């Protein structure tokens, strides 16, 4: 059984079935891509995993335990972190503080802070150091004290990933991390993602539209269309799959 496993999940909004019978698996150290045309349900799958929605049918398990139906913050505490399709940073907070938020649930007790105990001081310096380390990892040290909304687009995308990492996840969900970035930034991003996988042993699930990135980085790819899984497997197989081609390019005209 895989570390993160979706089993035949279905979700409907009123009369519209957004996701139907979707199964997915990710293990630590794996890079799995999720692709499909717009509206295929990719972000919805992310929202199911992270607890924004609960599936109408089917189960989601993390390390054998069911997480479907749990509140989002509980799921994050169990080790799943995400970035958002439209960047959702904390706009007026500094880059440093954005990352610090990721650590906050595990940052000691508020009572210690109020009383000014030595434990509080130790927590402050420890977490401060970890935040700075993460910022350095993502080339954001220079922008440490700048408000998140003043950062360049590429920097914001990097900050979102840094913030997600601060939560100490075992599985990382990246929703279109390369959207709107330059080719140079994309190459850097690919290197960074691979490095994260190797260094932290993370399982990484990526939604992307850039086919080159997906084909180069991912070991496995799952293809969604109209809420259903239409193909899954190694990049080479996906590239040649007739249904995938049809989903993206339309049916063959004869």
């Amino acid at each position, binding site marked *: 059984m895989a570390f993160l496993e979706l089993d035949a999940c279905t979700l409907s909004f009123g009369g519209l079935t957004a996701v139907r019978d979707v199964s997915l698996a990710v293990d630590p150290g794996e890079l799995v891509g999720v692709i499909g045309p717009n509206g295929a349900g990719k*972000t919805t799958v992310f*929202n199911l995993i992270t607890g*924004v929605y609960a599936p109408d049918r089917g189960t989601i398990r993390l390390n054998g335990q069911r997480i479907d139906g749990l509140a989002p913050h509980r799921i994050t505490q169990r080790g799943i972190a995400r970035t*958002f399709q439209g960047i959702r940073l904390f706009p007026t907070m500094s880059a440093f503080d954005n990352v610090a938020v990721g650590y906050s649930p595990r940052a000691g007790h508020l009572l210690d802070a109020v009383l000014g105990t030595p434990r509080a001081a130790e927590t402050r310096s420890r977490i401060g150091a970890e935040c700075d380390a993460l910022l350095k990892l993502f080339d954001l040290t220079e922008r440490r004290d700048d408000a998140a909304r003043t950062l360049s687009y590429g920097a914001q995308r990097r900050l979102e990933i840094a913030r997600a990492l601060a939560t100490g996840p075992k599985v990382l969900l990246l929703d279109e991390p390369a959207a709107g970035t330059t080719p140079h930034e994309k190459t850097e991003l690919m290197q960074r993602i691979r490095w994260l996988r190797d260094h932290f042993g993370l399982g990484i699930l990526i939604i992307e539209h850039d086919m080159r990135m997906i084909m180069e980085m991912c070991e496995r790819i799952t293809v969604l269309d109209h809420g259903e899984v239409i193909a899954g497997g190694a990049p080479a197989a996906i590239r040649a799959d007739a249904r995938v081609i049809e989903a993206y390019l339309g049916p063959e005209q004869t």
Partner: protein
Amino acid sequence: MDQLAQQLVNGLAWGSIYALIALGYTMVYGVLRLINFAHGDVYMVGAMSAFYLAHALGFAAAPSLPGFVIVMALSMVVCALLGALIERAAYRPLRRQPRWAMLTTAIGVSMLLEFGGQAVFGADPKFFPQLIESAPAFRIAGAVVTNIDLLIFTVSLLLMLGLRWFVYRTRAGMALRAVSVNVDAAALMGINVDTIIAMTFMIGSALAAAAGAMVGLRNPKIEPLMGLMPGIKAFVAAVLGGIGNFPGAVAGGLLMGVSETLVAAYISSTYRDAVAFVILIAVLLVRPTGLFGSVTVEKV
């Protein structure tokens, strides 16, 4: 049983007033997502301007129905202009700011109208001229419906039907509905959003003015703070019906009027004002979208 019917008539009369004011709240919330705190005070200005107009135009000395109608219509114009002014000066500059900014400004405008009213009109109550002498019009189920109450019902109904015709049968009304659903998309379709919003304020304020003038006729004691409680009650009525929903505002207003009248009659008159707050809390906790409102889900 006679008493119940009479109370119902009273309740519906007040309910019609609340409905007219509630429509203004709901319209503005629909296009701006703003709770216009100052709206209840526009209703007060409506009553006050009707008062002064009645005296200035000589109708106070020579009461008549047409006289009242003219006075009411003119005060509607006055308040429409006031509404447009408020929107242009106090709310439009803040459209791109966080929500609490416009809300706080609305509170400021409300305070300005109240305290300004006290300074300009004098804090003492005035007595609205008896432009129509109250007389029983007919009896129904043992209750007496006066000519004034009949006027209130008729005028309210006509205004509401007129609004409905406007919103659903004219292009401007369609534009209003479009702006209520999605401001940016409406702008992209070529709708002049600024004009539509200004128009919304003008219509809402005119309705409030009509309510104010009619209240002056029914309960002649008017003063600068008279908009406070009816404003809150009408707002609760709008929330009860589903904020942004026009029929809901009307239903909410009537329900509010009837329930508070019945509570005052059968339980205790000191709790009359509390009814609004109880309904408010109940609605917000049980069904925040109101009776007829629809739930909007945030896309993640």
